[in-house]
């Protein structure tokens, strides 16, 4: 790539965010209600039907779910309140500009491109969820991945393509109207989740609060994984709840939102999203999943396939089907819009509508891969681990660097195209954490055990429990490399650069 092309790419990237270069002004700040509404609507998505179901299939216990998810969601809320929001209200800049300051424009382009890909994948999973609902209504079976069905039927693909096409076109033409519609849908959805679960309880034998806990352990969260599934426990629940939005809180993605907050304490508004969407909705979808499996087994089905559409139909009828379709749709739409925006940085000469449509095609393709929904929890975990480090650098740059006498925003001040400490910290932390996980999970990575000291070879890493090690490795590598970089730099720090 030539220098001219490089500068075009960076100019284009900057142009996308040209209105976000300046900190948000006082007159544009918002209060508690805005953030409560925003978090409540954003974190109740179609994928909640999948993640609650996956916990049941992975054999967690009722204690794991009720206490583990509570702890994980609490940690997520604290991460938003004490890590993300304080930086956001002090800097009042988007994540894009903050990453650019500490990591340089090249790494920001890499971050944006990869972030676009994962957003397409997540949008695809939401289309997939909506498709299961429409397919259930018209009697088309959804693919049963655990039974070995790797590709959906043609009619199912046609429904997914139709839904995906509508979502892509709306993302291009009418995002604002769709955003308003999502706001209308949001208050209704938690009621449908709760109603579906309450109405399903009697089919499992629950007669009142007295026997709920017993039935919950015997028939819903039994502690026994479904055949072919890994066994999850308490810490998996904690890790999943904490990790699934780590790119937004510890990864600082939501500084873009909280830069509009009057006070950092508004970070606690995230509790509404977490405890409605990732606690109540996951528990409710777990109950509906168990009721569906119970009903299918009673009907003689050997391998029940609890798709979001099927469990919602059983729990709340056609209202449940509408809920699944809308939950998938309203979340897939802004996700696709953001993916298009991020993709645009890698395609400088393309128009935004074309980029968004290309992102839509990627979304539709991923929606037709059943493995995406089957491994959604793992995908979410990888997503968190991979994108979190750059946000961790913003946090460390903001709080720790002045105390260490290091220059803040070094890449920006020295006009570096890429910060090598950020590259080492980012790829190093993910590489180390992935290798520690893969050595015991994939045969092709088993050789790693032979090269490690015995204490590390004995360490059995789990993807969901890598949050803290990944964060610590990332910030340690970044800080040490920054010390080396800044101490070796022949250019003295400018007045006022430190602190």
């Amino acid at each position, binding site marked *: 790539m030539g220098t001219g092309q490089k500068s075009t790419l960076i100019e284009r990237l900057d142009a996308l965010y040209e209105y976000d270069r300046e900190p948000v002004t006082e007159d544009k700040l*918002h209060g508690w209600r805005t953030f409560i509404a925003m978090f409540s609507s954003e974190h109740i998505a179609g994928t909640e039907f999948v993640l609650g179901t996956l916990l049941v299939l992975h054999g967690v216990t009722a204690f794991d779910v009720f206490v583990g998810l509570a702890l994980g969601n609490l940690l997520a809320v604290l991460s938003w309140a004490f890590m993300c929001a304080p930086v956001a209200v002090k800097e009042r800049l988007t994540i894009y500009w903050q990453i650019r300051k500490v990591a340089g424009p090249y790494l920001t382009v890499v971050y944006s491109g990869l972030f676009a890909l994962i957003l397409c994948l997540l949008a695809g999973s939401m289309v997939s969820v909506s498709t299961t609902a429409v397919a259930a209504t018209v009697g088309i079976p959804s693919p049963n991945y655990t039974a070995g069905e790797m590709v959906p039927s043609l009619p199912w693909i046609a429904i997914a393509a139709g839904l995906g096409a509508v979502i892509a076109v709306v993302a291009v033409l009418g995002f604002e109207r769709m955003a*308003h519609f999502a706001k209308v849908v949001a208050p209704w959805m938690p*009621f*449908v989740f709760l*109603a579906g679960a309450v109405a399903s309880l009697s089919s499992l034998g629950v007669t009142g609060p007295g026997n709920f806990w017993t039935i919950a352990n015997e028939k819903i969260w039994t502690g026994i994984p479904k055949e072919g599934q890994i066994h999850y426990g308490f810490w998996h629940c904690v890790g999943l709840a904490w990790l699934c939005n780590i790119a937004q809180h510890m990864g600082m993605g939501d500084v873009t939102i909280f830069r509009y907050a009057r006070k950092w304490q508004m970070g606690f508004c995230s509790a509404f999203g977490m405890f409605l969407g990732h606690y109540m909705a996951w528990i409710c979808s777990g109950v509906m999943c168990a009721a569906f499996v119970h009903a299918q087994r009673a009907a003689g089905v050997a391998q029940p396939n609890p798709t979001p559409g099927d469990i919602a139909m059983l729990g709340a009828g*056609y*209202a449940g089907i509408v809920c699944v379709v809308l939950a998938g749709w309203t979340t897939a739409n802004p996700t696709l819009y953001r993916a298009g925006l991020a993709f645009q940085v890698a395609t400088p000469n393309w128009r935004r509508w074309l980029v968004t449509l290309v992102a839509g095609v990627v979304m539709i393709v991923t929606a037709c891969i059943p493995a995406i929904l089957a491994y959604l929890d793992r995908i979410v975990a990888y997503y968190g681990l991979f994108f979190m480090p750059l946000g961790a650098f913003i946090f460390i740059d903001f709080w720790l660097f002045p105390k260490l006498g290091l220059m803040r925003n070094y890449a920006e001040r020295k006009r570096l195209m890429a910060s090598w400490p950020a590259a080492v910290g980012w790829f190093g932390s993910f590489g180390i954490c992935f290798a520690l996980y893969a050595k015991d999970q994939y045969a092709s990575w088993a050789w790693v055990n032979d090269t490690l000291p015995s204490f590390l070879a004995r360490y059995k890493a789990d993807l969901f429990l890598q949050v803290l090690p990944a964060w610590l490795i990332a910030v340690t590598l970044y800080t040490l490399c920054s010390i080396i970089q800044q101490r070796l730099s022949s250019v003295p720090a400018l007045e006022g650069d430190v602190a």
Partner: protein
Amino acid sequence: MTSQTRFVLKAISYLGLAMSILPAFLVFGDVVSRGTYLWLMILGMAMWFGTASFWVRRDQVSS
């Protein structure tokens, strides 16, 4: 939209939300049949969507 219209629309919306949850407890308590519960859920949905879009405000914070 007058404040009275807005009040009526809001009242129907909230009634729709109530209709989207209370029948679940009624079917759990064996007070109504499952068929009735499913119809009431549809009714609640129609009440909410038929009215809420007129008074729920558009987003103000852009991300």
